[in-house]
């Protein structure tokens, strides 16, 4: 990276440091005292359902949203300053590319907007085309590309200036599984290059695969933060999750599940157990009450379970 941040604490400064961020839109509080830190070279996942405040937080870090209170620092520089803009690359959720320009022309335009020129620009365009696997489509109009290719071009345009920090706002929305895998590989390549990444998603699998640490956000607040294992351990300890589907009177089933400390979601009951031996007495009691058992499974809790445990709602609600 040839650019340098002019803030005095640049050498030691964190890629992202958010402190007590509050943003209200009328009566809606989109961010309610968010504090967050991203360590150098780390990929931090911001996991939350739609409307949780992920995009607002990203836009505040980019400097496109002015917070009511709180502070955002990018490598020590205040958000939206020239130094901060230079240090970060933003990949928005929308396909923010020029559809009538070719892939190469798009990258050249965004490169120039970032102050690149001459040989450095040509070099960066070539690197981005290769990174996004769009070398053979470089001369094609962006509007004529497939959905996955547009997503990849959208990502390439965000990192054309090879920033030290990349902010990705749900980059896999509407992408087929094959293209999604390609995008994961691209993000992993960025990590290998030493870039710090802040990645928002509401897909648990993405967060688990890509992120070193995960922050769960809901109703504009960070409700938990840590590695995937830490989050599960903190929420469930050594307990496992039993899911069961019962037949019979659904109201009676729901009342019994609640009485046994479990929860119902979409017709499926969920319990937590410390040892597998606890399952048999549970099923015996169900049978005694005349509740039929359709299927039962035991699994380690995951981030989805953590979110459900913390909020009482599914991640995709």
């Amino acid at each position: 990276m040839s650019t340098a941040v002019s803030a005095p604490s640049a050498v030691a400064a964190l890629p992202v440091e958010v402190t007590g961020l509050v943003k209200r839109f009328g009566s809606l509080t989109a961010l309610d005292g968010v504090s967050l830190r991203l360590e150098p070279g780390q990929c931090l996942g911001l996991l939350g359902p739609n409307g949780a405040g992920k995009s607002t937080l990203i836009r505040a870090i980019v400097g496109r949203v002015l917070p009511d209170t709180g502070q955002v620092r990018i490598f020590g520089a205040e958000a939206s300053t020239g130094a901060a803009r230079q240090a970060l690359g933003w990949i928005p959720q929308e396909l923010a590319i020029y559809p009538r320009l070719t892939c190469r022309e798009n990258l050249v335009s965004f490169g120039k907007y970032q102050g690149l020129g001459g040989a450095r620009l040509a070099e960066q365009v070539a690197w981005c085309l290769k990174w996004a696997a769009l070398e053979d489509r470089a001369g094609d109009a962006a509007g004529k590309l497939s959905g996955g290719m547009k997503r990849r071009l959208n990502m390439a345009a965000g990192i054309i200036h090879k920033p030290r920090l990349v902010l990705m706002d749900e980059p896999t929305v509407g992408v087929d599984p094959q293209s999604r895998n390609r995008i994961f590989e691209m993000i992993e390549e960025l990590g290998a290059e030493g870039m710090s990444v802040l990645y928002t998603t509401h897909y648990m699998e993405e967060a688990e695969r890509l992120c070193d640490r995960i922050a769960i956000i809901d109703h504009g607040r960070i409700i938990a933060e840590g590695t995937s294992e830490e989050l599960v351990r903190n929420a469930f300890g050594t307990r496992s999750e039993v899911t069961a589907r019962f037949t019979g009177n659904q109201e009676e089933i729901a009342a019994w599940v609640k009485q046994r400390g479990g929860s119902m979601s979409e017709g499926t009951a969920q319990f937590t157990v410390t040892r597998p031996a606890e399952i048999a007495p549970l099923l015996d009691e169900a049978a005694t009450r005349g509740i039929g058992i359709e299927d039962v499974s035991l699994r380690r809790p995951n981030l989805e379970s953590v979110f459900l445990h913390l909020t009482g709602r599914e991640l995709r609600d």
Partner: protein
Amino acid sequence: MISAIVRTAITGLRRDRASLALSFVLPIAFFSIFAVIFGSAHDTIPQVHLIVVDQDQSSASRNLVRGLQREGSLVILTHPESKDSSAPAQDYTAAGAEAAVKAGTVPVALIIPSGWGQHPIAFDGGGSAPEIQLLNDQSDAIAPQVVNGLLQKAAMTAMPASMAGEGEKYMKQYVGGLTAEQQKRWDANLEKLNAREQIRAQQPADASTNTSSGFGDGGIIPVQTRKVVGEHKNKNMISFYAAAIGVMFLLFTASGSAGSLLDEQESGTLDRVLSSRVTMTTLLAGKMTFNTLLAFAQLTVMFLWGWAVFHLEIRGHVSGFIVMGLCTAFAVAAFGIFLASMCHTRGQLGAVSTLLILIMSSVGGSMFPRFMMPEAMQKAGLFTINAWAIDGFQKVFWRDLPIPELWPQVSVLLGVGIVLFAVSRRIARRWEFS
């Protein structure tokens, strides 16, 4: 089933204010504009500004001028407007009147030559008697017709004594004179007519009691018409229509092009661009530069087409075209950016721009020349980019005026462009942060 479809469509239309405006406001606005221009309201008939140079200063010429002054359709100017109220302005000379017509100050001037009063009426074509000269600007085809007609009318009504005197001369020439008794009674009547003329001369002109009615080109007062502007133009009014139509379409193109801001906002590209090193001011300046160049290119193509197909005289006007073209392009580009910054969606921009541009174009002279419009509407036209641009191009191509003479148009167009850009920049703050 059909009623459900109709209800859905009505609800959709009711909530689409832009479509509602296009459906109802635009037709009403256009109807009103055309009604005012071509309607029958008597107080909205356009007045013709006419310079009169009375070199004769005879009783007949003074009566004729007074007769013309009584015409409500004419505004008679005998001297330029004086900036210093304490010093009365000098009367127009023949050369000054011709210069004023050439500069577009007035469309017509009348020169009453010395000696005209001795033979003001000509039933036989005038012979060698001095003739009134009517200097006109060919771009206004109506004004000279109006002036010539009213001139003949004024001769009939404002100078009966002169007519009678001239009639006597013709009678003596062709009949052989009167008896002593007839001559005595004739002279007595002539004195009465002279006395009446004197009394009328002392009364203030009352425009409301006079109505104009043209007599056509032929008349009892011989008039020599001379085109002082456009006399060598091989293709009449091509430059006017190139500018008039050009500016209207420039406005449409500029607002459409500036609408890319709204597209970019909707697609998220605007956010991305503003998160780079590009600031809002830089972005707007970039869009403005592009739109200016696009508009100038459009004008160039239009005038080149006029040259190739309609023999518009471009040679000798290139520098004037560049000055006016760039100033016009700058103003319309800023207008486009202003509209885009005001609107929230492409649909809204389409409706608002169509509404405004069509109204501006009709009032500003892009659809029909402003001299055909009532006085008030001509003044209203000065609030449009169209009017200033068209006037400027007319000065270049029609009047062959040098570039320094374009200063009013250049100043207004550049001023409008700068103000609209500044206002747009202020409004665009809503795109910068949320």
